[in-house]
Every structure is written in C-alpha cells, then in structure tokens.
C-alpha cells in the first residue's frame, strides 16, 4: 500500500464521519415527499446535534457510571468499526485477517453497553427496549456472519478490505459470483434495517413508549449524551451504506474506481441512496408485528445462505 492509498483511506473515513448525519435527514425528506408533506430539511440532524451538544445534562438518580460511559463507548466503537471498512473501495485504515469478526464484535460491544445503560435507569420501558433490542440483534447476528462468510469465500480472505475492496482474487471471481453478491446485498439491506432500528423492525418516529425499541432505550439520555447516541446511529447507517455500495459496486463494475475522487463521489452517493431506500421502505410499508420480526430476520439470513451455497457449490 502506498502513502497516497493510506491518505485516501483516512480521507474517506473523514468523509464518512462528516457526512453520516445526512442519511437520516434524506430518509425523512424522502418520506415527506412520498407522503406529500413539507417535511424537515435534510440537514435536520446536524441542527439537532448542534442543539443537543450545547444543552445541559439531566441524569437519573438511579444511574451509575455506565450510564454516562455508554454513549462514549457506542460512538467510539462505531468509529473504530468504520476504520475496518474499505470506504474508498480499495483498502481500509486498519485491516487484518478475520477483521470482519472484529467489526461485528465492536458493534456488539456498543450494543451491550447501551443495553446496560438502559437497564441502569431501572425504568420498565427502557428494560423492555433493551430486551427487544438484544433479542432482534442476536437473531440478526447469524445472517450478518453468513453474508460475511459468502463475501469471504468469494474473495478467499476473511478481511473486510479483501471482501469489499477490489482485489485481483475478487475481480476474477465476480462474473460467476454475481447472483450470490446480489443475494448478499439484499440480505445485508434487510439486516441493516434491523441493526439500525428502522422500519420494518423498529420505527424511529413512533411516539408511544410501549412500541419503541431503540428509541425507548435512550429515553433518559439527554444533551451531549443523546447527541452522541443519535450520531452513532447515523454512522451505523453510513457503515452499512458503504458495505452495500462495495458489494454492489463489485457486481456492477468489476474494475472498481480508478481515482479517489470517483470513489468519494460514489461513497457520498451511497449515503444518499441509503437514505432514499430507507425512506421508501418506511413510507411504503408498516412496521411488522413483533412476533413476525424473527421470521423477517430468518428470511434475510436465508437469502444470504443461498448466496453462500451458490459460491460453495
């Protein structure tokens, strides 16, 4: 890897960190257009984050240090997880054999601490949210790993840089593995909606605590703490956007992007695309009943499993 590659990978990481909050904005703008409302501007989340960062903090008297540590850990793990992805379609800032496992593990650590923080408040609503969140996440985990295993078999390497970047092994395997890649992409999109707590698994715009999942877990967080959690949620959407981009990009143009500028433009487009896709899903379908969610996740995982079987042969 040359110096310019390394600089490009850091620049792509910076782009992700700066541009991620646009995705929830695009999603809600899409929803408002499709449902014929005026709606909030796409940079609404930036404004919200700015506002929250300057607010004071209200702490529940029941809580301990983990309540305050959780937002920090959630944000830190998400950013470190981002550094494992080849955001510019070539290499990531950190890469090693089996780093896909670390990617999932980092997101898991964030989820674990956030769920603990919500139990820390002693609120029954937040306990309910935590319970549902870890339930859905534990069912989404196998699907995520099947998708990773499929990409790994195609690339002959279980490192995200090889699985998503444009390596020689991957380019050679692409024509035959095309159908698998499409299935993996669909499955990853379905799982991403669950991981990022969007419709059809969770509805971020609901106002009834009983029906919330992720939103209710953070009821007691306020000010900068809430800002970090919201920002980490946007980053997570951006991570999955980047993964999907590189899965589909490889299927469409095996050579990949020649220049960094093209790669950055593609990354930015993928953020907008993710926002639009999420918005379209949210305005065309209702949330699933909770007993149906395991079926949805199993279906998503099964799709990736078909992809895996196709490449194993």
């Amino acid at each position, binding site marked *: 890897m040359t110096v310019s590659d390394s600089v490009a990978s850091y620049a792509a990481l910076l782009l992700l960190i700066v541009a991620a909050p646009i995705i929830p904005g695009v999603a809600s703008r899409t929803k408002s257009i499709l449902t014929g409302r005026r709606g909030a501007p796409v940079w609404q989340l930036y404004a919200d984050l700015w506002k929250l960062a300057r607010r004071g903090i209200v702490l529940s008297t029941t809580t301990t240090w*983990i309540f305050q540590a959780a937002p920090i850990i959630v944000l830190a793990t998400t950013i470190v997880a981002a550094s494992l992805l080849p955001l510019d379609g070539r290499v990531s800032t950190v890469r090693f054999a089996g780093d896909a496992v670390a990617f999932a593990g980092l997101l898991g650590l964030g989820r674990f601490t956030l769920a603990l923080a919500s139990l820390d408040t002693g609120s029954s609503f937040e306990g309910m949210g935590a319970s549902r969140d870890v339930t859905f996440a534990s069912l989404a985990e196998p699907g995520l790993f099947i998708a990773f295993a499929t990409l790994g078999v195609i690339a002959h390497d279980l490192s995200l840089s090889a699985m998503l970047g444009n390596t020689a092994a991957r380019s050679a395997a692409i024509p035959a593995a095309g159908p698998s890649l499409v299935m993996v992409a669909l499955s990853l999109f379905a799982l991403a909606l669950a991981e990022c707590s969007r419709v059809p698994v969770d509805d971020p715009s609901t106002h009834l605590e009983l029906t919330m999942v992720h939103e209710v877990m953070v009821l007691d967080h306020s000010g900068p703490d809430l800002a970090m959690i919201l920002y980490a949620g946007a980053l997570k959407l951006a991570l999955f956007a980047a993964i999907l981009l590189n899965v589909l990009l490889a299927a469409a143009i095996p050579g990949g992007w020649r220049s960094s500028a093209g790669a950055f433009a593609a990354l930015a487009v993928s953020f907008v695309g993710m926002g639009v896709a999420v918005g379209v899903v949210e305005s065309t379908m209702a949330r699933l009943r909770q007993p149906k969610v395991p079926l949805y996740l199993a279906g998503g995982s099964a799709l990736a499993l078909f992809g895996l079987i196709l490449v194993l042969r």
Partner: protein
Amino acid sequence: MTSAVGAVRVLASGIPASLTVHGAMPGGDWVLGIDSLSAAFLVVILGVGAACAVFGTHDSALERSAGRQGTWFGQLSFATLLVGITLVVAARTVVVFLGAWEVMAISSYLLIVAHHEEAEVRRSGLIYLVATHAATLSLFAMFATWAANAPNWSFDALAAASPSLPPASMVAVLLLALVGFGFKAGFVPLHFWLPPAHAAAPSHVSALMSGIVIKTGIYGLLRVLLLLGGAPAWWAWLVLGIGVSSGVLGVLWALAQHDIKRLLAYHSVENIGIILMGIGAGSLGVAYHVPVVAMLGFAGALLHTMNHALFKSLLFLGAGAVYRATGTRNMEALGGLARRMPLTWLGFLVGAAAIIGVPPFNGFVSEWLVYQGLFAAGQTRDMSRLAILGIPALALISGLALACFTKVAGIVFLGTARAPRALAASEVTRGMYLPALMLAAACVFLGVIPALGIGVVNAAARELAGAGSVALPDAVRSGAWAISLLASSMLLLSMLLWVSRRALSRRRATRHEPTWACAYDLPTPRMQYTSSSFASPLLSIFGPLSGVRVERSPTAMRTHAVDLVLDAVALPLWRRVRRAALRLRGIQQGRLHLYLLYVMAALLVLLGYLAFGSGP
C-alpha cells in the same frame, strides 16, 4: 509451585520435562511429564487455582466466624483437588492418570456437598457422583481396549500401539473417550450433572470446577488425539456437531435460568461447545490434511479453554460475592448492586464482556481464531468446506450470549433493588474482590495483547495439528497486533470523547432527577423489568426447546426452567429402570436354602459349560 515453575520453563524453552518413579509401583513405573499441552493447561490451572483459593479462604473465614464447624475439611479437599488436577495433566501412565482422575472426582464431590445439611445439595452431589463414575467407567473401558496389545500401561506404549489398533477398537476408543471425557467436560447431552452441582457448591469451588475441572475433559480428549495421532473424519464431524448443539442449547438454557450460578453453569456448557467446535475444526484439518485449518482450530480451542477458565472463574467469584453479600442467588430478588459493590461489579462486567466475545477482551481473541478455522475449512475443495456452516452457528451463540449477559449484569447489578436483602448489601472484603480483579486484569491483558495468549498455546496447537504442520499463518500473528492497535485506538477515542463531553457539560449545570417513567409519578422497584421478562421474547421464539415450564393459576403465574436432559429424559428413565428392577424382587426371598439353590444352579451351569461348551 514447583509445577508452575516447570510449566513456565517448558513453555519458554519448548523442551518437555519428565519424572519417572521406578520400583514396585502398581501398574508399572509411574511416569510424570510436562510437554507443551500439559504446560499450557498447568499455567491456567495454577493461576486460576490460586485466585480461587484466596477467595475461598476469606469466604470460609466468614462462615467460620458465623459459627460454622469443619471448614478446615473444605480447605483440605480444595488442596487435594488442585493436586489431583495437576497430576491429571502431568500423568504419563494410565494408572497415575486414572488415580489422579479419581482423586479429582472424589475431592470435587466432597467440596460440592460442603453444605450437606440442605437436601438439594445432597441430591446434586449424588447426581454428580453418578455422572463422574459413569465417566470413569468408560475411561477404564477405553484404556483397557487400547492397551490390549500394548507392552505396558505408559502413554508412550499406547502411542506406539495406536497405529496397529484394529479398526473396531479404534472406533471404540474414540467413542469411549468422547463419552468419558464428555461427562467431565459437560457437553449436551452429558451436561446434566453440571448446573445442579455448580449451584450447590461453595462459590470458589464452582469457580474452580467451571473454570478448571471441566477442562480436564477437554485435556483428556486432546491427549487422546495426540496419542492416536489424529482422528478420522467422522469423529471430527461428530465433535463439531456436538459443539454446535452444545453451544446453542447451552446458551439458550442459560437464558431461562433465575439462579445466577445455574445460569453461569449453563454458560460453561455453551463455552465447552465453542471449544469443541475448535477441536472439531482442528480434527477436520488433520483428517483432510489441511494444516492451516488444523492449526487454527486447535489454537482457537486451546486459547478458548484458557480464556474461559479465566473469565468463568471471574464470573463465579463475582456471583459468590453477590451471594455472600445478599444471601440469595435468585436474580429476581437482586438489583442495584453496582452502587453497593462497585469493585465486584467492575470485575463482573469485565467477565461479562469477555464471555460475550467482544473486543478488546480475551474471549474475542479465541472466538476470532475459531471463526478463522471454520472459514479456512470453507476454503478447501473437499467435504470439509461444509464446516463453514459452523460460522452462523457460532454467530448465533455469541448473539444469544450477549443477550444473556445483558440480562445478568443489568438485572443483578443495575437498576434498583428488587428486595430488601439487595438493599442491605455492602462490598465484600478485600480478600474476595482482589482475586476477582486479578482475573479481570488477566482477561483485559490477554484481550489487548492477544499475541501473548496465542504464544502460550502455539506449541501445543502445532503438536496437535500433526508433524507436517505449519506454524500459525503470519496473517494471524499480525492480526493479533492489529487487535492491539484497535484496542488502543478505541481507548484513545473514548478518552477524547470523554474529555469533550466534560468540556460540553461544564458549560451548563447537570441536573439529577428521578428516572423518567413516562409521566407516571410513583414508580416502584417492582415495576422494573425482571430477568424473566427480559429473556421472555427470545425464549418464546425457541418454544419448547428453551425448557421453560409455565404454571398458571387464576391468581398467579410461575415460570421455571427445567433441564431437558436431566428432568425430561435421565430421571424418568432412571425411575423406569428402578421400577423394572423391582420385578427381580421375586428371587430375593431372604431364605438361606433358596440362595444355596442359586449357588448350586450356577455351579451346575458352569460345569455344563466346561463340559460341553468350550470345545477342544
């Protein structure tokens, strides 16, 4: 102490050490030895053993001051148990091995029934005793089959005899080893003694049993593999399958528990499953001649054995401290202990993060190796590529483990106290939290610098992977350092975020208010989510497999967890056997002349056999 020095020396130099006692010993010369496999186990055994011993000394001092008699006997049995385990991994002849195995089994029993005044404890002890002797019996059968055409009973002779073992004996040896060592390791369906025994034993004993004693089953399997020089493919698939089912069912049944120590015991079943998945992948690599798979699988299994010993004993010591402070193991009665027992909470939290396999803790490193072993198997061109299907299974196991430990840590330590006894708890003495914190430090240390742990198991994994094996791929070595890099960047980033959060929060006053209960003014601790309600969505998905039995009445509903093997199969089967045996009562009349008649009849039958049956 001497064995600790010896183990470290073998690990450092790579030269095996051995000691032979000649003379008129029963069963030939007694040989002890330390090779890389024994050394890897010994280091953990003695380290964890020391931590548990310190905790136990302070814990039983408290019991003594509360007026309990005879705690010295528990201390003595604990020391005997440690000696027994050390001898098991150092034995190089069958006689010493089986002798040490029995010393270990019996002293464990004496420790489990320490509180024998409780009926439940006596029952658990009895179940344990039956299981452990079933194990010993099949080990006797295994060694007898194996040594049938060996000149003596030393392990060297067994290794030399194994190539000439007839195929049927080979199958018998492999299956008997799986049953004998499987009872000790406690995989599904041979795990049924494990949860009751771990719940009944004093906490430091549960810690040692779950962390170390059950690992002697793993050690035994690996020793057999080493002496046989690899196992056929069917055995590897069998072990992989057992690993998957044990892992998934273990964590699922753990979710259903209300008793914190039973819950941790089921997690041992789960982690033995993960270890077996590693051994299965490693054996597949040997059977299909793919050294990389063998190396990654065995290294992952060995490292997970070591890591599990550290974090599981840490968790049991934490549970023991909670039990000492509150007098209950029922999670539904606990809550809010993080404020009252901050150091115990810190240790328990580290253990929980380690067991769910997230970076930067040690549990992640070994699961990372097992994932890579399964993935490397998936890269091959023969049957063994199907092992890649173990990856989603392992992912499901760690996902469920995350859910389960969110429940344990959150319900026991966070929120508010659900019962007065949890409200009255205070931090345990230094002698009880320091050993736990030492183990926690080891978990973090091996997670932040994975190269260390991998270095300890490397030599043993190479031996297991066979003569022509390669060292661990360079990618794994550099990967271990990359994990260190991830850990430090995570730490740095968290500190940065913490500083900026502090700067932001300084500008406005921080208010302290009661938890927002959605505009309801009088929330009580009873309104909190409980351990049952937390686990309920997952358990209902898995239906009857989760082993939850619900009792409803017009005014109340109770759920309790049943063990699908012990309560649904083993005990009913045993009752049926006992009823059938009652039919034989007719021949037991208690009259002397009848018994003399039986003796005569038996003699006549034998005479008849000698005269006509035996032939020329």
